């Protein structure tokens, strides 16, 4: 068992034990009332969570909108707008029974027509992530009655139920959006959902304010009277605001890492370590460049770069050193035999030898392109530069504004090395395959290393559609064997996030994602 999964069990166990205990001893401790202040970093581009994957809209949207299910910390789907569901034998037909008596914030009834509308018109066309999935699955949606929805998929897709969350598939009202341009609908600024909180006001640049939905379907919930999403653009200032009590909740995405230790030690603050969604940070190498064309050269870099230092200094310890091609965020698929720790322990003299072998001239200069808005890339770049100098390579740091970086790296492929991070989005097939699959499109956020290996493409293709976990694990292990040897991309670390909250808040982290399930949060006064 990896260190990390152990930690999660431990944490989950604690939280569960805690709630059970509370539930058993004193139910009335869950008091009504209070306003919680949650931090976001900038104005959301829209409040319609069905057409964006932005963090802020997701955060706010999770309180306004609901999916058919929510996912608990053990990745188990739990009933939300759907009370129950069945899966056909071939795993291609999903039937959901909808909750009765659910009303939209404007008082209209929620029905299966809303689900079909949301899928057909919003998610499949406008949701940046879900639409890619749906394009492959091409579901046919039937609504036999107001409370039943049937999805018929073209392909099997193991995580299908798990994407029915308020983040991946939030339900929006048909009666508001039908017949309009969904992207331009004014309801995107004054959203209507079914969730525990209702939209109240949006002061641009300052805050979005939600108030309790008194007509929420789950009686007695939510506990809080209001939620305020305060905008604080700068990381350290967000930490400060939590310390001074100006805000109550800091989602891991918005946490300034160097502050975590101090904040966690503060007895007015509680912390929860652990990421909802695995994500890897990596160094992609341009195999089209002569100096990086050979695997020996790339292995030399893997041997010369200090991944522990990256974790300690670039991430302030909030990461696990790179394990292999897919990190170790999905413990079931890791290939211990091919692990970086075994293959590429830090060894500058061996790296030099490998470089000689690859006929890379000493003092070759490599351009390292990155987005300077990400602090860990600034620091990481400096560390890599220092590491590679030890083995006789010069690194020229090229910080580029995000959109310019995208153009340089993904469109023009004008780089030697680049620092990037990809999120798994819950499954390696969604988020990680794109790092390695042969890619000729030059679209952004895909494999830009120029690496192309038919064997890898085949293995990953099978892994994406294989229905059972054991098969998938075997395919992934095999792929790792190849990829960890070829290292077109060196995974530097797996992110470990930490949510931070005021101790006044109780009942947090009921869902796998800290932004979810705020209907259960209550405030000590």
């Amino acid at each position: 068992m990896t260190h990390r999964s152990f930690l999660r069990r431990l944490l989950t166990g604690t939280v569960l034990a805690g709630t059970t205990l509370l539930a058993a001893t004193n139910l009335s401790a869950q008091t009504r009332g209070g306003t919680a202040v949650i931090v976001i970093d900038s104005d959301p581009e829209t409040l319609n969570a069905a057409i964006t994957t932005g963090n802020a809209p997701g955060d706010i949207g999770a309180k306004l909108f609901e999916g058919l299910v929510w996912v608990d910390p053990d990745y188990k789907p739990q009933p939300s707008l759907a009370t129950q569901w069945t899966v056909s034998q071939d795993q291609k037909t999903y039937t959901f029974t909808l909750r009765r008596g659910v009303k939209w914030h404007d008082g209209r009834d929620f029905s299966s027509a809303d689900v079909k509308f949301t899928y057909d018109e919003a998610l499949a066309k406008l949701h940046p992530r879900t639409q890619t999935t749906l394009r492959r699955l091409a579901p046919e949606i039937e609504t036999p009655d107001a409370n039943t929805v049937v999805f018929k998929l073209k392909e099997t897709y193991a995580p299908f139920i798990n994407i029915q969350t308020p983040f991946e598939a939030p339900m929006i009202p048909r009666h508001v959006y039908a017949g309009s341009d969904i992207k331009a609908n004014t309801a995107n600024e004054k959203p209507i959902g079914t969730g525990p909180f209702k939209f109240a006001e949006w002061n641009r640049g300052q805050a979005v304010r939600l108030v309790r939905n008194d007509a929420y379907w789950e009686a007695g919930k939510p506990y809080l009277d209001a939620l305020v999403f305060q905008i604080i653009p700068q990381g350290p200032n967000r930490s400060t605001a939590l310390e001074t009590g100006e805000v109550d909740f800091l989602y891991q995405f918005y946490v300034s890492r160097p502050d975590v230790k101090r904040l966690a030690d503060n007895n007015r603050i509680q912390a929860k370590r652990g990421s909802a969604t695995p994500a890897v940070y990596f160094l992609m190498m341009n195999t089209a460049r002569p100096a990086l064309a050979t695997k020996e050269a790339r292995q030399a870099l893997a041997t010369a770069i200090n991944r522990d230092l990256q974790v300690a200094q670039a991430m302030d310890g909030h990461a696990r050193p790179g394990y292999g091609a897919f990190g170790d965020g999905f413990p079931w698929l890791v290939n211990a035999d091919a692990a970086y720790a075994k293959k590429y322990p830090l060894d500058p003299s061996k790296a030099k030898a490998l470089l000689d072998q690859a006929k890379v001239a000493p003092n070759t200069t490599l351009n390292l392109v990155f987005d300077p808005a990400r602090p860990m890339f600034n620091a990481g770049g400096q560390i890599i530069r220092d590491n590679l100098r030890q083995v006789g390579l010069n690194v020229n740091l090229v910080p580029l504004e995000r959109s310019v970086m995208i153009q340089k790296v993904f469109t023009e492929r004008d780089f030697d090395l680049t620092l990037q991070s990809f999120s798994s989005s819950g499954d390696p097939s969604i988020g990680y395959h794109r790092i390695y699959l042969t890619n000729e499109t030059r679209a952004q956020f895909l494999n830009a290393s120029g690496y192309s290996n038919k064997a890898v493409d085949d293995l990953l293709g099978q892994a994406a559609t294989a229905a059972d976990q054991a098969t998938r694990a075997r395919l992934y292990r095999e792929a790792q064997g190849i990829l960890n040897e070829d290292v077109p991309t060196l995974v530097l670390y797996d992110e470990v996030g930490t949510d931070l909250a005021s101790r006044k808040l109780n009942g947090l982290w009921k869902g796998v994602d800290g932004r979810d399930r705020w209907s259960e949060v209550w405030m000590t006064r």
Partner: protein
Amino acid sequence: MTGLALAPRNTLWSRLRRRPGATLAMAAIAISVLVAIAAPLLALRDPFSGSAASLLPPLSPGHPLGTDHLGRDLWSQLVYGARVSLAVGILAAASAVLIGTAIGAIAGYVGGVLDNALMRLAEFFQTLPRFVLAIVTIAFFGSSVLHVIIVIAILSWPQTARLVRAGVITLRSAAFVEAARLGGKSDTAIVVREILPNVIAPIVVTGSLDVAAAILLEAGLGFFGLGDPNLVSWGGMLNQAQQYLRQAWWMSVFPGLAITVVVLAFNLLGDALNDALNPRLRDAP
């Protein structure tokens, strides 16, 4: 007119020296320039060489000012950073002054439509939000020190141009200029040899203030992460320090102080020069 005349050097020097601020400022500038030149000698370690000993506080063994989040020696960074800050400040200001002087002299001397056009251009550049444009431009051209210098110079010349133009206009019909004209001097000779030496005072003053402004602007760009990460600069150090403000105040305080002191020195010098060169503010004749 005599207001624009620069008094002979010795008296300027003595007037400057009588101002306590000026002496301090010149000393501070001299020290920072020396530090920048002697950086390799003064630095204790390679400023880029990292170690696991990160975030050591000041007065740690081997690290008088402590280390940063990558375990690099702050003192060595500070010393090398002086090079970038001063080079950017001085070169940018010098370029701005050169451009401004040329444009101002041409506009003022030639007059007419050309003057109008050039001054509109100057006005135009002054209306543009400088810092914002600098950010956009640096983001576009990439953040190298040379680009920073060019951008600051291009955005800073109008002030000098206006002053030079005003001086040239006052002087172009001055009796001694007309005498030179009657004496058969060419226009270029008149501008360069008769007029410009007499408008040096405001040029020197704005030049000095421009250095201060350029250092601040560079620091601002660095703070926004638009500095050149392949060099150590004080602004860049502040940018890195942002994240560690609460953990390692020294990462922010030392470069912040360094910027303040050097900028202050150039501002004080400009102010003192202004006083010393402005005859209307002088003591009784």
